[in-house]
């Protein structure tokens, strides 16, 4: 009964989706067609071959058919999708639109994927912290920052990033010394943030401020003294400390530090990570590194599962979950350490020549291929600036939304009940408040993910990436109708499907909402 109603709902929505897509593509097709002449440039051209090109273009793109009718020719190709023969037409240069899009998608995904994940994780965590510390200095500062980020044009940020994060940073790296003023101001800013988030009052507040400040300044000063910025690395000792920190942190957030079994299981993973430190370094020098990294990820997860199953007697699911998350993060730290270990070799290559952060492009073509770690570093370095720009712009929205939702949830009666029955603050926040905050957030995330495929037009242009945005740009500039419609077909379909998925997800997560009731 329930299933059939859900199916009917989905079918009805898919039907509407088709009608809407038909309508908007018809509108866009005609709007784009009447607004410009694809042969305009050729008409005024002095080139003797112009006439020949015009004739052949007219034949290939069927320009002799009036646009409203030509639309249906295009539609016939698209509807070929259902018989497994999708035809989006050809671009002006004769290439298949489908091929052009297929080759652009990976670039765009690479560009926006990290940025969106970062924006979500950072935005949601900061939003929730600001909600928990409502009206604190941190809350006010973050409100201001998010408004500021809302108001920034991305191309403006991009130019600043190129100047200060790439050119100036590269200059700095040639003689990496931190001036006393910079050292003190970094320390002050960091300790202000930490003490405001900690939310302690009185003497404790000053203690936190002081210790964070001293810690930051001493660490930075030491790092600079040992020339860490040119030869970075964690080494086995600090790697182990980082792993233990992860073990404590993940356990606290996931099941609470009081759960000794979970803590024991995560700490054992940290010990295993330490034991495997040198063997993995050896393994990272073998051929076929891509495969080895994947294999090691699988190995890590399965190790974590088996260790936690051995240690846990009761409540196995929660402990396995905790250990797997912790082990995964330890693996990431291990990769980071390996990248750091490669860093000196990377920046001293001829292609890089001690200027590691590039301002444009998606890869350094001068770099010799073959070394997995060096090309990974190169890829990451090319991603840094666009990722920062995209993250900065989009995470402001998540902060505001997560903060608003969390505040609303914290005012609910069930939170009061949870506190009244004596649950710890951690349980109330992580299990009762946070999970309910995620329901509306999850639907936004789905819609956003679909939107970013076509959404990085400006970023791609500023940083010289060749993805969907570039295709779209080219399509408009050269009146390439088929290409424009191809891009639109993909983004429009994705957006509508994401909306449908978001609705279904919402009803799956929130039992109060019934799918297809009435509507």
């Amino acid at each position, binding site marked *: 009964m329930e299933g059939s109603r859900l199916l009917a709902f989905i079918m009805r929505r898919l039907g*509407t989706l088709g*009608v*809407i*897509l038909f*309508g*908007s593509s018809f*509108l*866009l097709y005609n*709007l*784009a067609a009447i*607004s*410009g002449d694809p042969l305009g440039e050729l008409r005024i051209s002095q080139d003797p071959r112009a006439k020949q090109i015009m004739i052949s273009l007219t034949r290939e793109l069927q320009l002799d058919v009036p646009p409203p009718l030509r639309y249906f020719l295009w539609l016939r190709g698209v509807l070929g999708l259902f018989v497994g023969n999708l035809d989006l037409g050809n671009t002006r240069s004769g290439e298949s639109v489908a091929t052009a899009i297929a080759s652009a998608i990976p670039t765009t995904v690479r560009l926006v994927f990290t940025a969106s994940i970062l924006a979500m994780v950072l935005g949601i965590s900061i939003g929730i912290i600001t909600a928990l510390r409502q*009206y604190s200095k941190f809350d006010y500062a973050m*409100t201001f920052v998010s*408004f*500021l980020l*809302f*108001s*920034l*044009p*991305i*191309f*403006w940020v991009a*130019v600043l990033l190129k*100047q200060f994060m790439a050119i100036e940073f590269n200059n700095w790296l040639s003689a990496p010394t931190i001036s006393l003023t910079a050292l003190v101001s970094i320390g002050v800013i960091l300790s202000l943030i930490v003490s405001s988030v900690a939310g302690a009052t009185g003497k404790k507040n000053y203690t936190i401020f002081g210790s964070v400040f001293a810690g930051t300044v001493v660490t930075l000063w030491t790092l600079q003294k040992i020339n860490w910025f040119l030869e970075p690395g964690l080494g086995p000792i600090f790697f182990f400390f980082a792993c233990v920190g992860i073990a404590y942190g993940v356990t606290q957030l996931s099941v609470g530090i009081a759960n000794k079994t979970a803590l024991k299981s995560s700490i054992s993973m940290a010990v295993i990570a330490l034991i495997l430190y040198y063997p993995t370094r050896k393994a990272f020098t073998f051929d076929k590194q891509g495969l080895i990294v994947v294999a090691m990820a699988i190995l890590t997860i399965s190790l974590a599962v088996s260790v936690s199953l051995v240690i846990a007697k009761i409540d196995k699911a929660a402990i396995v979950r905790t250990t797997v998350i912790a082990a995964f993060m330890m693996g990431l730290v291990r990769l980071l350490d390996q990248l750091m270990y490669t860093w000196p070799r990377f920046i001293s290559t001829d292609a890089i020549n001690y200027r590691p952060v590039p301002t444009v492009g998606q890869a350094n073509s001068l770099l010799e291929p073959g070394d997995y770690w060096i090309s990974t570093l190169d890829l990451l370095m090319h991603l840094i600036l666009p990722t920062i720009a995209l993250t900065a712009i989009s995470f402001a929205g998540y902060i505001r939304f997560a903060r608003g939702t969390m505040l609303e949830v914290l005012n609910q009666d069930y939170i009061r009940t949870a*506190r009244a029955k004596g649950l710890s*603050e951690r349980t109330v926040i992580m299990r009762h408040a946070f999970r309910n905050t995620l329901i509306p957030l999850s639907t936004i995330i789905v819609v956003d993910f679909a*939107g970013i495929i*076509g*959404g990085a*037009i*400006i970023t791609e*242009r500023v940083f010289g990436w060749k993805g969907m945005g570039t295709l*779209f*740009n080219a399509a*408009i*500039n050269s009146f390439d109708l088929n290409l*424009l419609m191809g*891009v*639109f077909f993909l*983004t*429009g379909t994705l*957006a*509508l499907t994401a909306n449908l998925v978001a609705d279904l997800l919402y009803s799956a997560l929130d039992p109060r909402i019934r799918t297809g009731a009435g509507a």
Partner: protein
Amino acid sequence: MSTSREESMQNSEVSLQDIETEGLSQSQIVRKRFFHHRGAMVSIIFLFIIIVTVFTALESKIFGIRIPGWWKYTVEDLPELELGVCDDGLVGCPTLSLVPSFLGGDGIQLGEHPFGQDDIGRDYLALVMRGAQRSLMVTFVIGAMSGVIGTVIGAISGFYRGFIDSVLMRFTDFIITVPTIIIGSVIGFHFGNLGVAFLAFYLGLFGWTGLSRLVRGEFLTLREREFVDAARVAGATNRRIIFKHILPNAVGIIIVSVTLLMSGAILLETALSYLGFGVVAPDVSLGSLISQYQESFTTRPWLFWYPGLFIISIALSINFIGDGLRDAFDPRQRRRITKKDRKNAKVARKALAHK
């Protein structure tokens, strides 16, 4: 521990708020709350100053009457490139100085070219003012048009429901499907040369979708409320119910989202102009200025800084005004309780106890 503190705070907040709003009408409460929002008040004054400065800077024509601007240069003027004022052999750098002379600066003065000159010597202050005029105009036109269209469509579909609702909402979905930047580019690229007002008009035709959904939702809830039933029983027409009973209750949400829509509009306009699809040469907007001069960031950074500062100032103040409005219109919103409030509440409680 923190729980009990919070709860006692909540109780005192409720009583505080009751005392604060005693004997005031809804609009008085909203106004009072808005005027107490410091960020919003600062922003509204700031934005007002920007608007007045920008629109009176250059000579303008209204109905054929020439009104001279306060700035000596216009966009068309081509003064000589100033040599020798700048350090490092730069040409045409800004003469604006904000450091007073007793602090070792050149004193507070505008100088010949406060924002510097561009590569052919045009006065950059005049260019930025013209650009800001264009951007502000586009922003307000988009805000006004989207506000009207969104409200009308949302109100009709929320109030009448049924078939009209489905048709209008599918129409909204249909407009949403076309990404704003795509439609903006298609329109801007081909109609940009028809002038900035036309561009703004067309963008306004596509910017109302989010607002109409919000208004619809609000109308759907409000039409079920008792006061609407009461009005209907008293014999009010649909028109009267919509305009006199429901719309005043939905006006908060409309104002807030129009404000936020406007701050988005200025970014959309600058983004389109940046891509070359918005305001096109010889006309300038803040976005097209940045786009034109971004290559010269290392040699002439002022060509990049000033338009950007104007975009950020305008968008930031609109955002803060929107935030203040949201706080003012939201009845559930708890304002931060200041020390002064606590003192006032104490006085008020004592006065009550003495009665």
